[in-house]
């Protein structure tokens, strides 16, 4: 019977590059920024790292295939290094690989690094992915917002909600993140945005307007993990340990059967259920002190509040409008501004979220620091709500 990885892995150090339109910086330099900070935080030498996981989603606007460019950029010689790609959950997937390696006892110290250089596409938004020789013959080629916008129609139909009421809840999601982003120095966008600007923005994919969508930016983040014992031996007093990392991928049920109601993301619920069990969480609404969720679009964050079992079904809008997830609410969500303000350099995002939770747990976040958190969650969603990848990590003080 598997026992999970709870408290078997400690985060020794983390780093995060400055996110944004990094016109003069390439992927290698972004990785270097994140890696240098993580290495200094960990207090180890490069030569002590025994294995690496590199997350990058788009090889054509990054460094290419394989982990070789990453191991070359970081000058990590001769160790096992793996490139992982799990769509928008890629960053957390890299962390999962490194954590599992340490938890298994295979290595003592492993690095997870994720980077993406989206501003090299030449336009805003994500490139259109190739879906395979068969799928490209029948699947409509909608954009990412088009995939998630369909949740809004499904959610309205399920809960009998008006377009206006749902849009108000969605707008508060974006408004809150922009408020939080102001005190987040590494965020790409750091400007508060008035509610009416959000509501009246040009349409991207109905009902998602411009401010319902996260930005596109460049970024990288890095984690160095080890066992709690080694971390203490290396002089770490306050430890952040991994309480759980769980991943759930769709088998096509949502998009091929009529059992899914269109209002939620099944895989988030699967991953959350398993992650809570692994971490020993029975009441996420009171036990989680902060969360960083995949707010690629405002509607995504809204339904995620229900999929993480924090808000009751059909009641996320109420909690959101009540300020439950605001910086001064009971469970602050996107205290750093989220994807909304950081943008979504895909390979980096999950690790960027972990960086915020890690930093908050250690009381390092200055102006936006919340009062003595002990448990935080990160959540990524890759693909589309009806055929996707959900990855959840829970980090806490040991």
């Amino acid at each position, binding site marked *: 019977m598997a026992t999970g990885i709870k408290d078997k892995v400690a985060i020794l150090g983390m780093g995060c590059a400055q996110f944004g339109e990094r016109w003069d910086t390439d992927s290698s330099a972004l990785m270097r920024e994140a890696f240098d900070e993580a290495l200094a935080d960990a207090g180890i030498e490069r030569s002590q790292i025994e294995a690496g996981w590199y997350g990058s989603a788009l090889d054509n606007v990054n460094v290419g295939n394989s982990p070789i460019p990453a191991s070359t950029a970081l000058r990590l010689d001769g160790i096992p290094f793996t490139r992982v790609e799990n769509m928008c959950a890629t960053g957390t997937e890299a962390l999962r690989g490194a954590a599992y390696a340490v938890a298994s006892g295979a290595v003592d110290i492993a690095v997870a690094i994720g980077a993406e250089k989206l501003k090299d*596409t*030449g*336009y805003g*938004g994500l490139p*259109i992915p*190739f879906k395979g*020789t*068969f799928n*490209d*013959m*029948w*699947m*409509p*080629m*909608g*954009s990412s*917002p*088009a995939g998630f*916008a*369909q*949740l*809004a*129609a*499904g959610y*309205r*139909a399920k809960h009998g909600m008006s377009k206006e009421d749902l849009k108000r809840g969605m707008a508060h999601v974006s408004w809150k993140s922009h408020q939080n982003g102001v005190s987040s120095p590494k965020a790409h966008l750091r400007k508060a945005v008035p509610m009416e600007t959000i509501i009246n923005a040009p*349409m*991207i*994919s*109905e*009902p*998602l307007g411009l401010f319902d969508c996260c930005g596109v930016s460049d970024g990288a983040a890095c984690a160095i993990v080890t066992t709690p014992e080694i971390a203490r031996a290396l002089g770490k007093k306050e430890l952040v340990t991994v309480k759980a990392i769980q991943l759930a991928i769709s*088998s*096509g*049920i949502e*998009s*091929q*059967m*009529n059992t899914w109601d*269109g209002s939620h993301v099944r895989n988030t619920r699967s991953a959350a259920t398993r992650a809570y069990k692994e971490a020993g969480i029975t009441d996420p609404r009171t036990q989680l002190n902060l969360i960083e969720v995949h707010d690629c679009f405002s509607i995504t964050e809204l339904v995620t509040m229900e999929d993480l079992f924090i808000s009751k079904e059909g009641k996320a809008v109420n909690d959101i409008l009540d300020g439950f997830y605001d910086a001064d609410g009971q469970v602050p969500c996107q205290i750093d501004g989220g994807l909304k303000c950081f943008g979504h350099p895909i390979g980096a995002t999950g690790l960027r979220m972990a960086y915020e939770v890690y930093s908050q747990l250690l009381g390092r976040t200055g102006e936006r620091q919340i009062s003595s958190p002990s448990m935080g969650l990160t959540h990524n969603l890759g693909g589309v709500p*009806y055929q996707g990848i959900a990855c959840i990590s829970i980090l806490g003080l040991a």
Partner: protein
Amino acid sequence: MADFGIKRFGGYVPRLRIDRSLIADAHRWMAPNLRGQAKGARAFASWDEDAVTMAVEAGRDCFNGRPSDAIEAVYLASTSLPYADLQHAALVASALDLPTAIASNDAGYSQRAGTSGLLQALKVGEEALFIASDAPVAKPASTQELSYGAGAAAFLLGTGDDVVARLLGAASVTAPFVDHFRAARERYDYFWEERWVRDEGYAKLAPQAIAQALSKAGIAENDLTHFVMPSLQRGAADAVAKKIGFAGKPADGLAECVGYAGTAHALLMLAHVLETATAGDRILLVGFGQGADALVFEVTAAIGNAQPRNGVSGAIANGIATDSYLRMLSFYDGIDLEWGMRSEKVAKTALTEQYRSGSQIDALIAGKCGTCATIQFPRLEYCVNPDCNAPASQFEDYSLVDEPSQVFTYTADWLSFHPAPPLYVGFVQFDNGARILMEVVDVGPDGLEVGTPLKLTYRIKERDRARGFNRYFWKAAPAGVVGA
């Protein structure tokens, strides 16, 4: 050939319409005299419609859901087919889920490919599906840009008690009369003087063929009930009708709402006439172009049992008015617009995969699980039902093209590259439980909502402009007022 003829018929006209006045207004600065022809509306093919997709729709209208196992051949006539050496009839047959053990052929290179092809198919005497489909393209600011339209007509030919129109007789004349031409690599037609075409062409060649056909049919001019002759020229059909002594009113040329559908037009008019024809009616069908064809049919009592699904009338009634001339121009590549970098996506098709996926993609054949009865598209290796997961070897074919469905989710996507923005996309929920993410087309001003009834339509899924290859697939459209 007395007992052989048309058993079923159907038609299709693209739903998009534009008032001719909008076209004329756009060109008024340089061609003010176009205004004189700017009456009524014309149909135009959407960016994802062509002679192949219209042929499939006409074929579906003709079959009206009835099985077609007895078919021995499928023929397609057109002068606006997308390929130079790829047989389009085979594409149409696959989309219509016809048996593979049939003959097939394309007819083209002639304005009377429709009537000549139909006559040839009738002479062969096999049960066959004959379709004429055309979306002729006219040069911007030409008179043809106003008069052209698009459409397709389909006829199931055969013998038996269910023949609705027997061929009594037919004749052709052939002459090197060049009223207009389109060079093999050119996009647009080049026309000669109208009055010469009318007086020396239509008025002299058509009556020769008609006289012979009537003689073979053993009837006289005044035995005819319907005179069906397409013409690009106003009044040409009336002049020929008058010249041969036809006493009635020539059949509706569909100029008011469809426009001239090229080589399909004669057959489109015939399908339209058959909708209201009654037993005993005699129909003269004339095709013109480097000569003329004349076919004489007699309508039988079976006409009462053979109505198309929507018919030409239904297609005409189901139009969607558009308000932008530039939209139409863009759809037929008459203007080179900046679509942005997103339009640069590589759309290359793996022909191996296309052939392998066969009827799944072409005819939207889902799999019905032999264990749990879940209907699923695409059909992958195991049943999607998590309580079943039976292997696909237990699946039976299940066509989804005529199954009732409605909108389950939707959005209007303004970000993706789409030739007719926004891209409407969402899940189509079939009443039988199947669910597919599909593009939704022909969305009118009312938009979509969860629960909007849908019907499926065969379209170009994506055009690979770099290699000139179309991917065809099915899309959903609001069911509209007709054929829901």
